[in-house]
């Protein structure tokens, strides 16, 4: 379970998160929607301690993420994260990209990490691209590689930050299919997305971010088809 309580976060004088409360249960899929700059990405990075917070508390399976005593590297094994930019390591093949963290973070032997890599690459439909370098892959394939790379650490949660936003329209579908697959397998996910139909289909709940707060949250269908607040309605009206 991920428990976010009263989280505030500033960059210098700019307060980006102004008191966020959100609890995500095991197996749940929560989509975050909202305008650019409303703090969605920042929240994801606070959840796995890539960013610090000023006040409040984030707990992952009972671990206080931002406590000084928390081993952040170890915590991050529980939380896979995939970004908008694919960030495939360009000097490594697909297999090596996926095997890197299991090898160096978990210390697994090479034979095992290669197997892991092959398994997860096949899982995201890249079974025939094991030895390809990222530059030889399309955007959609690079993004699926990034997903496989996160999955190979066998995380309990996946944090997805607009993973289809940098893709050409014709490549969005294949990545969304991969996410659907994860959802079906019961992966707990927090996904920032602008794909409203996808959110409606896959998410249990949708949260609408505005200006550093969760302005409205509710079951996916309800929030998307009958938003209660004007700002949510305006946003959905603009994006749909």
């Amino acid at each position, binding site marked *: 379970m991920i428990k976010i309580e009263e989280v505030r976060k500033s960059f210098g004088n700019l307060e980006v998160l102004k008191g966020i409360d959100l609890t995500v249960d095991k197996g749940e899929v929560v989509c975050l929607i909202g305008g650019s700059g409303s703090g969605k990405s920042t929240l994801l*990075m606070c959840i*796995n301690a*890539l960013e610090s917070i000023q006040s409040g508390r984030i707990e992952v399976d009972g671990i206080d993420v931002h406590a000084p005593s928390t081993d952040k*590297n*170890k915590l*991050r*094994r529980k*939380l*896979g*994260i995939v*970004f908008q*930019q694919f*960030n495939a*390591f*360009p*000097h*490594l*093949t697909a297999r090596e990209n996926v095997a*890197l*963290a299991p090898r*160096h*973070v978990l210390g697994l032997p090479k034979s095992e990490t290669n197997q892991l890599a092959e398994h997860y690459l096949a899982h995201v439909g890249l079974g025939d691209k094991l030895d390809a*370098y990222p*530059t*030889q892959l399309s955007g959609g394939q690079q993004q699926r590689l*990034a997903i496989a*790379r*996160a999955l190979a*650490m066998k995380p309990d949660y996946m944090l997805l930050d607009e993973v289809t936003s940098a893709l050409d329209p014709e490549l969005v579908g294949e990545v969304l299919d991969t996410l659907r697959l994860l959802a079906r397998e019961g992966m707990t996910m927090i996904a920032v997305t602008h794909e409203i139909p996808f959110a409606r289909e896959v998410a249990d709940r949708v949260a609408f971010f505005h200006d550093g707060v969760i302005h409205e949250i509710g079951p996916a269908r309800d929030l998307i088809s009958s938003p209660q607040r004007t700002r949510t309605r305006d946003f959905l009206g603009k994006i749909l």
Partner: protein
Amino acid sequence: MNNISTTFTANDLLLMLQGAGVTFLLTIVSGIGGTVLGFLIGWGRSLRAPWLYYPLGAYIEIMRAVPLIIQFVLMNSFMAILGYAINPFLSGIISLTLYIAAYVAEVVRAGIDAVPHPMVRAARGLGLGYIQAFRLVVVPLGLKTVLPAWTGLMLGLMKDTSLIAVLGASPPELLRSSQIIITRIQEPLAVLTGAGAFYFIMCWLITLAVRRYEQRPLLQSLGR
């Protein structure tokens, strides 16, 4: 006077070969030392902690602004004052190392900065520690950017080694050896052409070594 030949002898060739060897050694030793030190300085600066960033920046500016020949003399006198009236070679190597490190540091910092931050964040997001992410992602990616500039620095360093002559180091390096011969046989054109050829061959060897290194699959993959 009849035991002093005024033509180029076999001994002269040996003297020049020895000079080339001295030049090469000076370059290799201070090149390695300067690269290690410069790497640490460049890395330190890339952390952007003010207490480290500015002092290291000052070091770099000073080393780049003061002519190397002055640094040689100052270092030698400084050593003497400290009571280490040491071998001019050692003091020369120390000067060259400190000098080239300042240039290497800037190249290293540029290499580190050239690696996009999101790439590093992705590595950390996988659970890699700071040092692991640096070693496994930043260094291999930065190397690609850095190698051509670094090679240029090393070739420049080789030519700068000739300034060690001000310390009267013996045996003389290549340029000094050539001057000794020229003084005697009065054939500057021929001797300097020969010395130039030696410098060229040594530069070419260094370039070749770097090029072989660049052929490694790791760096090849980045060129795709």
